[in-house]
């Protein structure tokens, strides 16, 4: 019972991610890769993403402190960051990345900095949500967390 309820909650939580635009279709691809051999695949990947991207965030922060801004370098960093974010389906984060790159191309320092702050916010929000989600999924039991069928 409790378990079912937990699973129901979990499903709702998950659905809200999509509805609110935090995650996109790519996340479902990850879920589909999860199987008995890798029951926690999605969580592992997301954890890896956050670990690796925090390094990038740090680099970008440092680069943004320079004066004048090296837009090329910033764009490079952001390209990498965007690639990672895209691969886990972090939709809002990805949108901020795109915006940031636009400002880089335009040489808009102010825009870059503003966008990056926004990006970090979205990044943090998503991280919190996903952490809660995975925690609940673990509690709910080893059953599949995704609503879709595995294959």
């Amino acid at each position, binding site marked *: 019972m409790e378990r079912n309820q937990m699973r129901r909650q979990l499903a709702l939580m998950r659905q809200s991610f999509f509805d609110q635009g935090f995650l996109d279709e790519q996340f479902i691809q990850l879920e589909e890769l999860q199987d008995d051999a890798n029951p926690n695949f999605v969580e592992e990947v997301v954890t890896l*993403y956050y670990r*690796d991207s925090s390094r990038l965030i740090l680099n970008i922060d440092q680069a943004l402190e320079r004066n004048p801004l090296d837009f090329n370098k910033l764009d490079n960093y952001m390209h990498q960051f965007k690639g990672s974010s895209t691969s886990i389906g972090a939709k809002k984060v990805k949108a901020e990345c795109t915006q940031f790159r636009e400002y880089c191309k335009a040489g808009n320092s102010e825009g870059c900095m503003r966008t990056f702050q926004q990006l970090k916010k979205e990044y943090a929000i998503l991280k919190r949500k996903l952490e809660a989600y995975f925690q609940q999924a673990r509690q709910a039991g080893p059953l599949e967390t995704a609503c879709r069928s595995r294959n």
Partner: protein
Amino acid sequence: MNQSNCKGSMSTASSSTNWKANDVVPDQFPAGLRVLVVDDDPTCLVILEKMLRTCLYEVTKCNRAEVALSMLRENKNGFDIVISDVHMPDMDGFKLLEHIGLEMDLPVIMMSADDGKQVVMKGVTHGACDYLIKPVRIEALKNIWQHVVRKKKNEWKDLEQSGSVEEGDRQQKLSEDVDYSSSANEGNWKNSKKRKDEEEETEDRDDTSTLKKPRVVWSVELHQQFVAAVNQLGIDKAVPKKILELMNVPGLTRENVASHLQKYRLYLRRLSGVSQHQGMNNSFMGPQDATFGAMSSLNGLDLQTLSVTGQLPAQSLATLQAAGLGRSTTKSGIPMPLVDQRNLFSFENPKLRFGEGQQQQMSSNKPMNLLHGIPTTMEPKQLASLHQSAQSIGSMNMQVNTHGGQGSSLLMQMAQPQSRGQILNESTSSHVPRLPSSIGQPIMTNGIAGGVIGRNGIGDNSRGTGYNQVPPSSSMLSFPMNHTTELAGNSFPLGSTPGISNVTSKGSFQEEGNSEMKGSAGFMQSYDIFNDLHQHQHKSHDWELQNVGLHFDASQNANPIQGNLDVSPSVLVHQGYSSSQRSGQNRNASAVGRAMFSGVECVEQGNMQNFSPHLNNLLVDNSVRVKAETIPDANCQATLFTEHFGQDDLMSALLKQQQGGIGTAETDFDLDGYSMDNIPV
């Protein structure tokens, strides 16, 4: 099969390693396909690995390009396909792609979050067999096995057909025309006069066809040996045969080297692509110049030939010639000396003498055929660029030939350009000098090159046009190669083309035309090409690839004439040409000539037979595969470059003349031996 690189899952499917395209594909296929995935982003890497595992492939992941390369080198046959990201910190993905293509010849798929057209195009030009946009979906990965099969199938098919080609797939990618050339060429080649070459070729062919050569994996050491050999020979003169001898690796065949050389040249071309504007003055330039020269000469010759053959109305021919000749009094002095050495031109009518009277001796010839093949893609503008009459003629031919229009079309073309003809515009003049360098000799090759060039040259614009025709031109090319004492005469055409316009001698020209016709035909083609190139300078890269392949084929098939000139010279020319164009240096001609020559050289050495298949390859990367059968001896090379002071010089001189009108051709290059006046044209 060894599962050494398998990360963890040992898939049972092991068939991927050794099956051949024509073998029965194992039931489990594509399961077990050995994939190496390279990406600096750990998240993507993990996801890709999981996806590939889900597809039942054997996956090895790697986050650094250098590590990936060493893995590939250590385990030569350990992987079937490589997937690599474009943006990586330690090495550019495209560079990795090139390395893999050169050393291991595996299919490589590029991936990136970047979906811009330029980037995707870059993948194409660097030889990636596919390009995936991130985020990559598993569906996209499910079908990657097709690239492996396709590549093997192409290779196998080549082996079957030519017995020597290893890069069948490359050929196919290159051009639609490639196919016909390989088979057709083979037949034609046999007829060519280069008996010696033929024999050589035959031997090679037998070797290759009798054994299904396993793919040669170019290890670092082997590649280094190869590069050392190439450098020792000089990039211009690096022909597969010599490279093979220098490398002295047992079990390595000339074909292996030839195909590798193609790739290597492609790679070098790419490298210098950036600096092309500076002009690749090295060998690449050479060829172009040579071609140019050839083209010019062709023009003159063509006219003759055409007229002789009756295709070109005598009047038009006369007109053209007059136009060309009239232009500059400077004689093309070219290459007469060159000719001697080469004898290349002598084929049917040794009359190349420039100064001689005009008789059209159109001897018998085969040369006429050359014209046919010539892809007439010459465009008027191209014409103009080349040099007046020469150019025009060339263009005429070229255009006519577009589809192998036989002489008549050529003639037509020729007639038309007339007006243009006197073109020799300055603009092209600059190029012309380039040609001369190699042109002198290459004239022969020019023919070929011309053909090739024509094809390729068709230039940005007409890339396509050139393609088909070449065959006749090829024959032309060959003729110079052989034996002609007349070389002098012959070479002249090449060099003289630019000069031809200058040379009023027309008489000689005509004669030359006969024998040269062949060559000229080729030239014309190339001529056009150059024009094209010239005009489209930026294209060199692209079109080279495209054209190269095409032309070769064309020439091969068609020429009955000794034609062994193989396209390669033209190919070289192209390359050289484009580069030269860019750089606008006249001197390049010499380089070009040389390059061309090397192409020619290759041809010589090459077996005639191999020529055709190789042409295809050539197409791919301008490698000199062209077996210039026509030049039976390597002296061609030597003579071309060394002896004559350089057709480039002549050419440039001629060009100059043209540009400046009849004056003496001071041209940047110094015509050592040739005085412009001597050009019989």
